[in-house]
């Protein structure tokens, strides 16, 4: 190997090591924000500010599914009162799901991806309370976990290596954006905003067959959301919701998109509804005593 290519390999390994060990991803958002703010004309800069205040928007977030989640927050105010009419039955199911999500109950979901292989790829599991509190566990190699969450007051992230400090911020807009940016394939952190987006940016219909196959369950209502020209192109083309008829609790949510490489599904499934202890959505519940905490 030439000296030149050895230098390339060394430098590339150096950049990857910096990225793995540092907090580079959480600073991406600020870096992009600065870059976009330098663009003359102001629209992007203003948009970015609006996005920061709103908590999240489609434009702030790196992956396609979080955009689905994110767009809801930014667009909800506008479309809440003036959403385009969907077939009443399907729309009412989504409204019931929204009401259930906004309740203060705890729910625990698994998130898995279907990459077209024989088995689903586990991505994470997420605990959700109300419209915005969540604690998400992301499996890392070697049996370790990375936790991230938001307790309604502080956003936090616990890196998998125990030597690394926990990152905490009381600026909810900034921290939530960082969390979403960093977990750009982890979709359903805010089910409420996901549902608002589904209600307002998709064509809804009721269906009788479960999206994931199997025999129809009479206790569930199924809604299919199909993207149309209102739906940003980076969002899933189809979303299938299975909602409990009795109380509107989401049993599963399957988001799919057309990929140039292979079909993709992201699947959220209800695991349990056990009440979690006080503090479960704060970082302290998930770290060992003495762990360093860095606030910013």
């Amino acid at each position, binding site marked *: *190997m*030439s000296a*030149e*290519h*050895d*230098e*390339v*390999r*060394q*430098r*590339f*390994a*150096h*950049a*990857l*090591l*910096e*990225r*793995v*060990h*540092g907090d*580079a*991803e959480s600073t*991406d*958002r600020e*870096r*992009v924000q*600065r*870059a*976009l703010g*330098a*663009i003359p004309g102001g*629209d*992007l800069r203003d*948009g*970015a500010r609006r996005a920061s205040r709103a908590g999240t928007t*489609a*434009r*702030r*977030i*790196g*992956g396609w599914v979080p*955009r689905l989640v994110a767009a809801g927050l930014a667009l909800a105010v506008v479309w809440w009162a003036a959403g385009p009419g969907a077939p009443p039955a399907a729309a009412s199911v989504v409204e019931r799901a929204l009401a259930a999500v906004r309740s203060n109950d705890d729910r625990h979901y698994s998130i898995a*991806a279907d990459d077209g292989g024989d088995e689903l790829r586990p991505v994470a599991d997420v605990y959700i309370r109300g419209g915005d509190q969540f604690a998400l566990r992301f499996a*890392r*190699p*070697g049996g370790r976990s990375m936790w991230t969450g938001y307790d309604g007051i502080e956003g936090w992230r616990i890196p998998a*290596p125990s*030597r*690394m400090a926990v990152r905490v911020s009381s600026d909810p807009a900034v921290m939530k954006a960082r969390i979403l*940016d*960093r*977990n*750009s*394939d982890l979709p359903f952190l805010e089910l409420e905003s996901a549902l608002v987006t589904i209600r307002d940016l998709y064509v809804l219909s009721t269906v009788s067959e479960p999206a994931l196959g199997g025999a129809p369950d009479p206790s569930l209502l199924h809604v299919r959301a199909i993207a149309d020209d209102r739906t*940003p*192109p*980076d969002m899933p083309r189809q979303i299938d919701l299975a909602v409990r008829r009795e109380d509107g609790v989401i049993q599963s949510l399957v988001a799919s998109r057309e990929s140039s490489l292979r079909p993709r599904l992201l699947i959220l499934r209800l695991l349990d509804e056990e009440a979690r202890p006080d503090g479960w959505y704060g970082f302290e519940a998930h770290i060992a005593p003495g762990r360093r905490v860095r606030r910013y």
Partner: protein
Amino acid sequence: MDTKRLFEILVREHAGMLDVFLKSAVRDPGLADDLFQETVLTAWNRLDDFDQERPFGPWLRGIARRKVLAAHRKSASAVALTDPGALEALEEQCARLHHRPGDTLDEKLDGVRRCIEDLAEPYRDAVRARYEEDLDGARLAERLSTNNERAKKLVQRARRLLAACIERTGGTEVTA
């Protein structure tokens, strides 16, 4: 969705890889940050030149590559990779990293994390001291209980082993 919003989404999607590209090419982190800003600004100004049938990331990094070469003309010492061929090889590394499994850059880096865990202890310690504890020079040498020269070589060797591991486990093999 209007052009500006699409542009912002695309930039956010590719910001991490652009950061890796620039941090690889440039020694000075401050300069890398400046080039990041300039690259995005230029990309916006030249958006009409972007072929929508082609991927956005390589196009963005192509702009960054020209920024790196221009920066080298101003300050040779701040830039590590100054040859167009080296920058082409770097782009190949980025493209291969992009095609590793995972939907996000963070997920694509899981293979790197596994390679770090697989390093022999002295090299793993060197990587931790240098990158996790952010030590350099004499402090790095002290932490590794050796002299400056030996500490530097340990880190260099660790990076070589890491690069080899990444290539071996798929995704970033250098072809030249």
